[in-house]
């Protein structure tokens, strides 16, 4: 039996809790993306619609005589803003998310992550935090700021009684957008070693589902096929949350159910793909 020269003494200090582990992954990812100039330009660009709508709010509140076309400062104004922001959400998800897991698989970094005291869920939560942070940055933050601008620019706050629920709608819609697009891009990123493949798959799923809907609608003159389109479902969910009239005939609740079901399916796919060791059978 060996005699050891020095008895082993394990670290007796205090370890940070579990939340800290997933935040470590998120913080590092966010910091790395902020260092990329092209990505910063993209974020700045995505604030242009906010600036435009901010100006619209200013004009509408200070110069009520000026006609702004169909634009009125009702819940639809905020819903349309968030729906339009999906264009930037797509690009940001592509840029920030397509390589997040694919590159870890490519560099075998998953086995390093998962050999540390973190769970697969921590890893996914950390990566999810990166994409959703940027999505919320261009949806939730400007959305709430627009509402705040409306309050700041108005002398009379009586309008609040009509649209008091809008901040909650902005929060709800922004989170649905963030969760849906983050989980979708991460699931595709986890499918292989190529960020490019994940990006192409991401755009294909989003746009082809809409193309399919348009074709079927054209053929059968029935907009119930909107349930097949992620884009249309997002529009329906927005209409439901902001209490505006939906664009298509299916009930918005059905669209919400499809979005939630898709999130669950993408999450299951994502969770199944995260393995410390890639087993090729």
């Amino acid at each position: 039996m060996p005699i050891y020269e020095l008895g082993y003494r394990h670290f007796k200090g205090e370890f940070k809790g579990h939340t800290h582990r997933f935040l470590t992954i998120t913080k590092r990812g966010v910091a790395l993306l902020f260092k990329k100039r092209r990505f910063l330009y993209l974020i700045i660009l995505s604030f242009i619609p906010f600036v435009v709508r901010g100006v619209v709010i200013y004009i509408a509140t200070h110069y009520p005589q000026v006609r702004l076309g169909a634009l009125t400062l009702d819940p639809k104004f905020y819903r349309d803003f968030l729906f339009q922001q999906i264009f930037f959400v797509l690009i940001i998800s592509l840029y920030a998310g397509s390589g997040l897991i694919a590159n870890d698989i490519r560099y075998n970094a998953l086995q390093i992550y998962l050999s540390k005291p973190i769970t697969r869920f921590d890893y996914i939560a950390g990566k999810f935090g990166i994409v959703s942070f940027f999505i919320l940055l261009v949806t939730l933050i400007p959305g709430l700021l627009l509402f705040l601008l409306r309050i700041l620019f108005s002398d009379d706050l009586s309008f609040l009684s009509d649209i008091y629920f809008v901040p909650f709608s902005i929060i709800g819609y922004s989170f649905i957008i963030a969760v849906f697009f983050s989980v979708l891009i991460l699931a595709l990123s986890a499918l292989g070693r190529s960020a490019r493949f994940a990006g192409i798959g991401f755009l294909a799923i989003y746009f082809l589902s809409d193309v399919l809907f348009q074709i079927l609608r054209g053929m059968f003159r029935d907009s119930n096929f909107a349930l097949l389109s992620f884009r249309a479902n997002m529009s329906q969910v927005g209409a439901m949350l902001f209490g505006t009239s939906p664009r298509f005939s299916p009930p918005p609740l059905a669209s919400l159910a499809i979005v939630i079901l898709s999130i669950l399916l993408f999450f299951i796919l994502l969770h199944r793909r995260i393995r410390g060791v890639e087993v090729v059978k």
Partner: protein
Amino acid sequence: MSEKVVEARNLSKWYGEVVGINDLSFSLSPGVTGLLGPNGAGKSTLLKLIAGLLKPSKGELLVFGEVPWKNHRLKRRIGYCPELDAFWRYLTGFDFLLNIARLSGYSGEEAEKRVLASLKEVDLLSAKDKRIAAYSRGMRQRIKIAQAILHDPELILLDEPLAGMDPIGRKAMIELIKRLGKEGRTLLVSSHILHEIEAMTKEVILIHNGRVIAEGNVHRIRELIDEHPHMVFFTCNDPRKLASLLVKYPDVVNISFSEDGRGVTIQSVKPDEFYRRLPDIVLDNGIEIEGMHSPDDNLEAVFNYLVK
């Protein structure tokens, strides 16, 4: 009575129809244990099972009395160094380790302190601000070991840790492994080169085709192995001269030349003596060695011999 850090009973792991580990039973106590076997023997699979990265297909595996699979708390006590490069190459060595320290639960100053200490352990302090992409293979190997020991683990699993290291780095790493073992930690170090393992420890587990074929003190196994010739392939400026110098020794039992005439394969039944005298012979006779390796099929042959 010694404490059992790892205990495996009838452990099996298969990937579809491919068997990685087959009905394996063994135990590990504190100190350094060598895990020896040719490529494809199941060494990496076994280390990944112990590290909790793979789920056993059958049998029981306990680490510190707990099941490692899906047990993230247990991973705080385990350090794992994979065989393949596994890191974000765009980071500097320091940043890479800092992330690892934070993932391991250390915060602020303590994390930085641990990073610097582990960099010092593997002699990479001077290269801490270089990107990992610019590291040599030996440096990458050392940073992998640094991430495995950074969080002060009690059980350290090293998969081929000396691969790609230069002789000086190799010597320093062997010393580090020995020291960690003497501190009372448990180290399981895999290799397909017997001499590497012998330099670190006397305790070995021999694994072949997913099965343990021998376990215990290396000297008992060594006698058997010594009867089987050890093969070394050289490429040098004058293979014929090198062969004529080595053939004089009784332990050299076979010499063959490569087809292009630039290489020579030597078989020795006393590899220790062979390696001891080799530097002097080369230096005294002005032979320039361009490459030297002990083919893996050499160990495969030894194992086949042992299995017989």
